[in-house]
């Protein structure tokens, strides 16, 4: 049992992310991004230059080119097709099809011919009612999963997702479409052929424009990525909130180099700025220590500084803590970003009640599959990627019993925010609190 618990804990140390676009016209339309440079837009009204990513086409014309009205400005729908030269006149020169100047709120974008053709091609997909996203036809929805090099773990997660898909397919699928899971090595390999990506452990290179629902513990900047495991920033925010409720308000942050430095810094600045905790200059003057760094440094710190509570992350403490002397181990307050293994019944995964390796990752994978299925149902028969993302963003406190309640929104792609506070006992973690929720 012990080993099962340890392995389950270990596998949460999944992560990193990065991003770059593939489908150029779509990246440009949705995010104002082009390959190889920062595109600058000229705001014609105020003669001001601003990065195009702040004013992408979709922000005013809508993800499906539906247009809108705001502050007395009527943003037209983009339903009729544009020739390349018409598009060039509108986007670069600010002149409409009818030869009149466009409203000054329409920025001008200095696009190359190639970028313009890419944009024109993407606009045609918006105006063509028969257009279907990649990986989608009348009978199937193709969902990708990248396995990477973590093969045993990834295989276990893939099985978990397959089990969910099989169940829904046996009940005639979603609006008559069967879910098909396509495995590949990397996200880039998947980008062209799948409608969406599920439960991929390593989100590196998750392509912009392809919706992706997965664990990802880092704050994801990619606007089509949705996460189910709390970010490091949120975990540290939850630690701060908890320490403060325990009257441990003067905190000294012991920071050794770690992959979480940027996120930890952002949480710390926020905690001190909002006076949730007070920064103590010295260890001696502190009620508690916050630690980020390596597990070896953590072990040394516990030996060096007796009697003071030390707050840290499960991502740092890992499974080694269980080998440490009780008096050291018990001073730890650990933030845990998902449901604990003890909260996940193997039965909930439909796999009997034998302990199994990769339990937590399987749970997150199954939860990701459930979230994808729910959003596909909500998105309806006329499925588009944009509609699917809107459906994801309508999920409010969605219950999977495999991860904490999931809430997404147009500005909230981290579905799970906060952490459990746990203490490291001989047989695994014990919960000190209910889920400590954090919001901005």
């Amino acid at each position, binding site marked *: 049992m012990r080993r099962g618990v340890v392995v389950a804990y270990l596998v949460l140390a999944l992560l990193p992310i990065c991003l770059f676009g593939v489908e150029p016209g779509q990246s440009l339309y949705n995010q104002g991004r082009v390959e190889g440079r920062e595109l600058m837009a000229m*705001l014609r009204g105020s*003669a001001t230059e*601003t990065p195009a990513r702040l004013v992408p086409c979709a922000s005013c014309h809508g993800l499906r080119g539906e247009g*809108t009205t*705001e502050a007395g400005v009527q943003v037209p729908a983009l339903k009729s097709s544009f020739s390349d030269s018409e598009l060039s006149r509108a986007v670069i020169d600010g002149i409409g099809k009818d030869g009149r100047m466009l409203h000054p709120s329409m920025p001008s974008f200095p696009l190359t011919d190639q970028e313009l053709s890419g944009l024109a091609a993407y606009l045609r997909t918006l105006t063509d009612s028969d257009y279907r996203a990649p990986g989608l036809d009348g009978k199937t929805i193709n969902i990708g999963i990248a396995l990477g090099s973590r093969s045993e773990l990834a295989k276990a997660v893939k099985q978990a997702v397959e089990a969910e898909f099989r169940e829904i397919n046996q009940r005639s699928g979603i609006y008559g479409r069967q879910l098909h899971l396509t495995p590949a090595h990397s996200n880039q390999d998947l980008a062209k052929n799948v409608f969406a990506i599920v439960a991929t452990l390593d989100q590196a290179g998750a392509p912009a424009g392809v919706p992706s629902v997965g664990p990802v513990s880092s704050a994801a900047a990619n606007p089509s990525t949705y996460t189910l495991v709390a970010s490091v920033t949120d975990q540290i925010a939850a630690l701060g909130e908890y320490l403060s409720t325990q009257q441990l308000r003067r905190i000294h942050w012991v920071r050794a180099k770690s992959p979480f430095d940027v996120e930890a810094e952002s949480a710390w600045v926020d905690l001190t700025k909002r006076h949730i905790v007070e920064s103590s200059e010295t260890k001696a003057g502190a009620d508690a220590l916050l630690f980020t760094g390596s597990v070896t440094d953590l072990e040394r710190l516990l030996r060096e500084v007796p009697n003071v509570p030390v707050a840290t992350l499960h991502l740092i403490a890992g499974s080694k803590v269980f080998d440490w002397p009780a008096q050291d181990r018990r001073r730890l307050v650990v933030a845990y970003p998902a449901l604990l293994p003890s909260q996940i019944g193997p039965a909930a995964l439909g796999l009997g009640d034998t302990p199994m390796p990769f339990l937590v990752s399987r749970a997150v994978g199954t939860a990701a599959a459930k979230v994808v299925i729910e959003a596909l149902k909500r998105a309806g028969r006329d499925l588009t990627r944009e509609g699917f993302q809107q459906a994801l963003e309508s999920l409010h406190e969605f219950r999977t019993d495999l991860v904490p309640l999931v809430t997404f929104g147009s500005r909230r792609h981290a579905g799970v925010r906060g952490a459990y506070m746990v203490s490291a006992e001989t047989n695994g973690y014990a919960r000190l609190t209910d889920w400590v929720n954090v919001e901005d």
Partner: protein
Amino acid sequence: MVDQDGRVLRFYTDLVKDQTVAIQFIFTSCTTICTPLGATFHHLQELTSGVDRRRLISISVDPEPDTPAELRKFADRFGARNGWTLVTGERVDIENLLKALRAFTQDRSAHSAMLLIGNDRTNRWTRAYGLSPAESLRALLREAAQGNK
């Protein structure tokens, strides 16, 4: 009222009194016109930096979701520095303020793209289109500031 750093403030006493100000109306989840409005204020801030008694004010017309943290993100997006204050608060207070400034609308999306430019000392106030070139807004601010002792 609260600003982007969570500081509690009184609108007139802390922001407007004795100052020459430009006031705009935004909300942070607005994806259309608020971005050009923010960029315009950024440019105006660059043009007027170092000038004494000038203040730029962005008032949120959607106060509940626009927490100080959201205002801070908006401010950071446009490089807001000292002298550019973003304001939110209780809905009733914000509504009263907007009514007093004749900028209240029931629907947040119908919020005004107008700027209010004025000088508290001389009590000279004018309105301008929020997407006007920053240079002409600077000229209006200068004009408003004239008459200061």
